[in-house]
C-alpha cells in the first residue's frame, strides 16, 4: 500500500509544481471597452510621450489559448477575406514588417476596434473587446512577433505558409540584428 500512497503524493506534488496557464473560461463579453486612445504616429513635437499601454496586451499575447482563439476568429469575422492568411489582398499584408498604424498590441487593437480610413472596417460593437485582444495577439503572431513559447493551434487547412511560431520575426527576417 505504502508505495502507492507515496507515488500519489509525488504525482500530486509534481502536478502542483506545473505552472498552469491562467485562462478565463468566460472572457469579458462587453463591447466597446478599451477606449485608450492610441496614436498612429511616433512623431511628437518636442519629444516622446510614453506609449500608452493596456494591461490586457501582455496577458493576451503570451497565451496560446488566446492566440488560437484569435486565429479562429480571424476566419470567423472574415479578416481572412481581406488579409488572406496574412499575405494580404484587399487589405495590406499583416505578416510583413511594414505597419501603417503601428505594430503594438494597443495599436492593432485600436485598428480593429475603430477601423482605418483606407478601407479597414470598424468592428466596434461587432466583436467583444476580449476577442479583439485575441485577434490582435494573433495578428502579431503572423509576423513572428508572438513569443515562441506560445503559438496558435496548428493549421488544419490547406498549407498557406509555415505555422506562425515558425515564422521568422518579419522585422529581422530571422537574422540576428
Amino acid at each position: 500500500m505504502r508505495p502507492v500512497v507515496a507515488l500519489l503524493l509525488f504525482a500530486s506534488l509534481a502536478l502542483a509544481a506545473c505552472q498552469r496557464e491562467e485562462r478565463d473560461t468566460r472572457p469579458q463579453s462587453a463591447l466597446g471597452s478599451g477606449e485608450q486612445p492610441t496614436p498612429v504616429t511616433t512623431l511628437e513635437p518636442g519629444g516622446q510621450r510614453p506609449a500608452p499601454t493596456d494591461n490586457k496586451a501582455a496577458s493576451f499575447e503570451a497565451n496560446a489559448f488566446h492566440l488560437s482563439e484569435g486565429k479562429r476568429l480571424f476566419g470567423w469575422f472574415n479578416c481572412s477575406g481581406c488579409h488572406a492568411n496574412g499575405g494580404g489582398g484587399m487589405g495590406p499584408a499583416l505578416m510583413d514588417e511594414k505597419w501603417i498604424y503601428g505594430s503594438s498590441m494597443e495599436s492593432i487593437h485600436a485598428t480593429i476596434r475603430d477601423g482605418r480610413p483606407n478601407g479597414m472596417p470598424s468592428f466596434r460593437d461587432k466583436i467583444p473587446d476580449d476577442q479583439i485582444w485575441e485577434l490582435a495577439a494573433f495578428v502579431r503572431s503572423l509576423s513572428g512577433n508572438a513569443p515562441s513559447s506560445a503559438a496558435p493551434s496548428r493549421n488544419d487547412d490547406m498549407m498557406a505558409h509555415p505555422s506562425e511560431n515558425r515564422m521568422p520575426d518579419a522585422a529581422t527576417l530571422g537574422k540576428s540584428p
Partner: protein
Amino acid sequence: MKQATQTAVFCGDPARTDLPAASRKYLGVLTAMLLTCVPLLTAASEAPPAPAISPPAAAAPPDDGQWTMPAKNYASTRYSELAEINEGNVKNLQVAFTFSTGVNKGQEAAPLVVGNTMYIVTPFPNIVYALDLSKPGAPMKWKYEPNPEPAAQGVACCDVVNRGAAFADGRIFFNTLDGHTIALDANSGRPIWNAHIGNINIGETITMAPLVVKGKVLVGNSGGEMGVRGWVKALDAGDGHIVWTAYNTGPDKDVLIGPDFKPHYEMDKGKDLGVTTWPPEAWKIGGGNMWGWISYDPDLNLIFHGTGNPGPWNPDLRPGDNKWTSGIFARDPDTGAAKWFYQWSPHDLHDYDGINEQVLLDMNWHGKPRKVLVRPERNGYLYVLDRATGEVLSAKPYGPVNSSKGVDLKTGRLVENPDKLTGTGKVVRDICPTASGLKDWQPSAFSPKTGLLYIPHNNLCMDEEGVEVNYIAGTPYVGMNVRMIPGPGGNRGAFTAWDIAAEKPAWSLKENFPVWSGAVVTAGDVVFYGTMEGWFKAVSAKTGDLLWQFKTSSGIIGQPITYRGPDGHQYVAILSGVGGWAGAIVSGDLDPRDATAALGFVNAMKDLKNATTAGGTLYVFRLP
C-alpha cells in the same frame, strides 16, 4: 470575290475623305491608303477567298480615327482601320509623348480620343485628365477629381482599378470606385451630373467602363467577393436618373424577365429561377455582378452583358444552379427586358465570372449566314453563340481546361469534371483554369482582315479548399482557400490568335506572366498588347512574329488604342502601371510567403516584385 469587296471597303473608307484638308496631310493619307490597298489587292488575286467574317455595320461604323469607347465600337472589335503603321514600318515606332497619371495602382483603362483631345481615367481616386493633342507634348486641358470615399479601397476585391470612360454627345461618362456615375462636359471638365448608385457599406464598388446606348449610360456593380447582389442600371445620359435596373438574381420582376424572355435551353426556362435555384434567401447575397463588358446590336436592338460568379465561392453553401450568375443576358436597351439568357457555368465551382467581352460578328456558320456573338469565356471555352437566340454553335477550349469536359451542345450545359468538384473541407488540386480563368476581363480584338480573334490570356492552375464563411455585410464572402500555380508548360500567360471559322488557334505566343492587358489590331496587320514586365509589343496579325517592342516603366495591364492625331498621322497609346488582381502583389505590396494572398493569385506571381514596380504612365507612340 468576297476578299475583293472587303478590299474595297478598306480603300473606300469615307471617313478618310473628311480629313483635315491640308494637302501635305492628304498626301500622307494617300500613301497610307496605297500601302494598305496594294498588298491587299495582290493577296486577293492570289489567295482563295477566305470566309468573310465582319462585324455588323450598324455596330461598327467606318473608322473616323477617334476612339470614343474602350471597345472601339458597339461590336467590341477593338479593330482600327488605320494602316499608316503596318507590319513593315512598326519597328520604327517612337515615343511621341508620355504623361504621369500620378496614381501607382493598376492602370486597366483605355484612353479615349475625341477630336483633338485624349481622356484618361485613373484607378482610385479616379481622376479624369483631358490632354490637348493639338499642342506639342499634349499638355493638360483640364482635370477632374471626384474625391471618392477612401474607404472604398478596402472593399474592392482585386486592386482599385477602373476600366475606362465613355464619350457620347459632348460628355465624358465614368464610374468611381465608391459607386458614383459621373457625367462631365468634355470641353471644360465641368461636372453635369453625379449619380450615387453603389453602397460601399455592403461591399459594392464600380470598376467597369460604362457604355452609352441610345441616350442611356449602362453601368453594373462589382462585389462578387462580398456577397453583393449583381445589377445593371441604365441611367439617363441627360440628367443621370435611373431609367431601369435589372438584377441578376432574385424574382423575375427584379431580373426584368417578362413575356419577351425566350431562352434557348430548357435549363434556363421556368418561373423565378433566380429564387428557386438557390437555398432560401441566398440569392440576396448571391453575387452575379456585372463589372465587365457590354456590346450592343442596333439592328436587333439588343445589348449583351455577362453576369459574374455566384457568392460565396464555396459551392456547398449554395446548392442549385444559382441563376442568373456566370451567364449572359440579351436585353432590350430601352426597357432592360431580358430576351434570352445562357449560363456558361451553372452552379459555378471555381469563381468563373461570366463578364468577359462579347464580339458581335456576322458570318457563315456551316453554310448558313448567322449573326453570332463570340466570347472567350473565363471557364476556358471559346463560345460562338447565335446572338438572336442564345444558341451555342461552338464551344472549344482555347487553352488547358480540366475543370470541365466540354459543353453539351444539346442541353447547352457545361459538363463538369467529377474529379475537380470543390467543397467544404477538401483540397482539390490542379484545377485548370484558375479562379481568374483562362481569360479574365482583359479584352480581345478581332480583325476582319484575318478572321482571327486575338486573345490575351492566362495559363494557370490552382488548388482549392472550401471553408466555412459567415456573411457579414461589407466584408468578403468567399469561403475558399486558393493557391495558384503556373499552368502546363510553365508560361503563366499566352497570347492566342483564334481562327473563329476553323474553331482552332492559328498561332499562340507564350508569355512568362499572365497577359493581363487588352489587345488592339489594325488594318496595318499589327496587333498590340502589353506584358506584366512592362513590354509593349507589336506582333504580326498574320503570324504572331514579334515586330517591335518597347519597355515601359511598369507592368502593362491596360487597353491599347490607336487613333489619328490632329496632324493626320496614326498614333498608338497605352497606359503602363501594374496591378489588377494579377498584379496586386506589386500594387498592394502583398507578401508572397502566403500562398493564399490576393485570393491565391500571389502564389503564382511570387517573382513579379523582382520584375517590375508600381507605376502609372501614359505612353503614346508614332512613326518618326
